[in-house]
C-alpha cells in the first residue's frame, strides 16, 4: 500500500512538468494550427537562460523564471513573425517540415555555442525532501507541479474570463469569422505562439533545476508532450492536465511494478499515442 501511494505521488508530481510543456504545445496547435516540432528547443533555450543567469550572475533559477518567460515570448514572437506566418496558408506538411527545420537549427546553434556537454546549476533545494510519514518526495518536482497548476490556472482564467482570451478562443474555433468581427487574427496568432514559447521556457527553467541544461534536453519532453496533446485531443487545452496525469501515472506504475520497467518507460507514451489514435478512429466510424 505504501509503495502504491508513493508510486501515485511520484506519477502525479511528474505530471506537472509534462503539463507545462504540453500546454504550450497545445496552444500552438489549437490556436495557430501549427504542429511545432521546435517546442522542445524553446524549453532548451529556457534551460540555458536559467544556466547562464546562474553562472554569470548567481541568479537562482526560480528568480529567473520571469525573465526566461519574457525571453522565450520574444523568441516565439520573432519565430512566428519571421518564419511561421509566411507558411500559415501552406500545406500542413510544409509547416511541419519548417518547424522540424527550426528544431534542428536551434539544436545545432546550441551545440555550436555551448558544445554537447551537460551543464548543471547548483541550488540549495535540489535535494530537499518533503516527508509525510513514510512517503517522501522532492521539493523541485513539487514546486514544478505547483507552478504548473498555477500557470495553467492563470492561462485558463485568461482564456475564459478576459476579452483577449475570448478572442484567442474565437480564433482557435474559426480562422475567418473573428476577422469579420474586428479581431486582429495575426496579432492573436502572435500572442498565442509567444505564450506557447514562454510556457516552454518556464518548463525549461524547471528542467535546468531538476535535470540539466544541454542542447538535447527538450527533445524527450517534446515527444511526451505530443503524446499528451494527442490523448487530450489536438488543441484541447483543458484535456492537457488530465492527460499528463494519466501518462505520468502510467509511467510510474510501469517503472515500479513491471520487472525491468525502467527500460519500458519510453514505450508507455508511444503506447498512449497508439491507443488514443486507434480509439478515436473507432469512435468516429
Amino acid at each position, binding site marked *: 500500500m505504501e509503495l502504491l501511494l508513493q508510486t501515485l505521488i511520484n506519477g502525479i508530481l511528474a505530471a506537472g512538468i509534462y503539463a507545462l510543456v504540453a500546454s504550450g504545445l497545445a496552444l500552438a496547435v489549437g490556436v495557430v494550427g501549427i504542429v511545432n516540432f521546435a517546442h522542445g528547443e524553446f524549453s532548451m533555450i529556457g534551460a540555458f537562460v536559467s544556466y547562464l543567469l546562474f553562472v554569470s550572475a548567481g541568479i537562482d533559477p526560480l528568480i529567473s523564471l520571469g525573465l526566461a518567460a519574457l525571453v522565450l515570448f520574444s523568441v516565439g514572437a520573432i519565430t512566428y513573425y519571421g518564419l511561421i506566418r509566411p507558411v500559415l496558408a501552406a500545406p500542413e506538411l510544409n509547416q511541419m517540415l519548417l518547424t522540424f527545420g527550426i528544431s534542428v537549427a536551434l539544436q545545432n546553434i546550441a551545440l555550436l555555442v555551448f558544445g554537447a556537454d*551537460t551543464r548543471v546549476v547548483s541550488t540549495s533545494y535540489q535535494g530537499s525532501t518533503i516527508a509525510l510519514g513514510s512517503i517522501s518526495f522532492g521539493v523541485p518536482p513539487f514546486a514544478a507541479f505547483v507552478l504548473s497548476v498555477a500557470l495553467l490556472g492563470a492561462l485558463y482564467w485568461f482564456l475564459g474570463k478576459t476579452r483577449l482570451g475570448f478572442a484567442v478562443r474565437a480564433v482557435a474555433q474559426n480562422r475567418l469569422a473573428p476577422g469579420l468581427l474586428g479581431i486582429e487574427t495575426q496579432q492573436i496568432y502572435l500572442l498565442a505562439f509567444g505564450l506557447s514559447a514562454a510556457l516552454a521556457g518556464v518548463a525549461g527553467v524547471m528542467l535546468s533545476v*531538476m535535470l540539466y541544461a*544541454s542542447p538535447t534536453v527538450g527533445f524527450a519532453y517534446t515527444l511526451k508532450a505530443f503524446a499528451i496533446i494527442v490523448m487530450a485531443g489536438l488543441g484541447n487545452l483543458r484535456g492537457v492536465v488530465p492527460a499528463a496525469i494519466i501518462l505520468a501515472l502510467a509511467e510510474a506504475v510501469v517503472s515500479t511494478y513491471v520487472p525491468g520497467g*525502467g*527500460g519500458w518507460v519510453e514505450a508507455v507514451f508511444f503506447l498512449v499515442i497508439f491507443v488514443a489514435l486507434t480509439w478515436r478512429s473507432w469512435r468516429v466510424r
Partner: protein
Amino acid sequence: MKKVLVVLLAVLGLAGLALAQTTVRVGVLLPISTVAGKAALNGVQLGVDQVNAGGKVKIELVVVDDGNAPAAAVPALTKLMTVDRVDIVIGGLASGVTFALSGPVKQYNPLFLCIGAASSVVEQAFSDYGRFFHYHPWDYHNVAAALGFFKALYDEGARRVAILYEDGPFGSAGIQTYRQQLQNQGYTVQAEPFKSGSGSFTAILTRFKSFRPDILYWIGYDVDALPIAAQTRQVGLEPKLIYGAPPAWPLGFEKNSLSNDVAGMTAWLPSVSNSESRRFVTLYRRKYGEVTDEYMAPMGYVIALSLGRAVEAANSTDKDRIAAELAKVQMDTPFGPLAFKPSDTGRTRFQGFNQSIWLQFQYLEGSRRPVFPANRAARPLRFPGNY
C-alpha cells in the same frame, strides 16, 4: 669576410637541420565540441609542441570534428584520407563512433592511434587490423579495476549493490557478467535498467528502498548524474555509497552540493603525484592558462609524445616503419609506464594501458579526489557517505 662565413655556416646549419628533420602530417579526428574531445585535442597539441620543439621531428596536425556521431565521423575520416592525404590518424574517442570507423579505416589503411573506445566490440572490429594502436584500457580492464574497488568495499562491510544501468549498448552490454562477478565477491545484487536522459528515477529508486542497498551503482551518462543524486535523497534511499560510471561528468557538478561523496572512476587527476603528471600539469597550465581534470588531455599528450618518439626512431615518414618503432616504445607517462603488448584477449596486437591506470575518486569539497587504491589516494574514502 668573417660575416659572410658566419652567415654561410648558419644557412648550412639550418639546411642541415631541415634535412635531418622528419615531417609527418597527422589527422586528428575527435569530437571537439565535447569537453573530453576538446581536452584530448589540447593534449595532442601540447604533445606536438613538445615533439616539434625537440627539432628532430615535425608533426603537422590536420584537425577534423567527428561530431561524436558515426554519420559525421565517416565522411570526416574520408576527407582526411582522400583530401588531406594523411597516413596517420589520432582519434576514436567514443566506442560507437570508432566501431563505425572500423570499415573505412580498413579501406584506407592508415596507422590508427586510438585514444578512447573502451568497448570490446571495437576490439573485435579491429581484431584483423595490424595498424591499430589502442592506448585506452578496454572495458574488461575497467571492470577489473572497479571490481578491485568493490572488493575493498566488501571488506568495509558493504554487502548489497543496487545497479542502475542504462538500457543501451553502453550500460547493458556486460551487465550479466558484471552482476555475476559481484555475486562471486559475495554481494547480493539487484539490477534495474533505465532510459538515459529521462530524468525519471524515483520509481526505480523507491523499489530499491526495500532492498536497502549499501552501494548504489549507476552505469549511464552525464545527463543522469544530477537526477540520480537528487532523487536518491528525495526518496530517502540512503545508500552508503553512490558510485557512478559515466564516460564524462556534467559541467559544474562538482560545485553542486549533491555531488558531495559521490564516487567514480577515472584514469588520471591533476593531483596524481608522479613526475610526468606534474610535468604535464605545468605545461598544460602554461599553454592554456588552466588545469584540466579530463584524463583525455594527458591521453592525447601521451599519444603525441609516443608518436614523436616513433617517428624519430624510424627516421622516416613511412607508416609501417613508424608503426614498427611505435610498437617498441617504452616511456613514463602521467598514467604510469606505457609499453605496447597484445590485448588480454589476443584480438589486437598493440594495447597500451590496462586496468592499472584506473583510480577511484570521490567528490569531496568541490573537487574530485583520488581515494583508491591506497598507494594513489590523496584522501581516505568517505564511507559511508552522507547522501
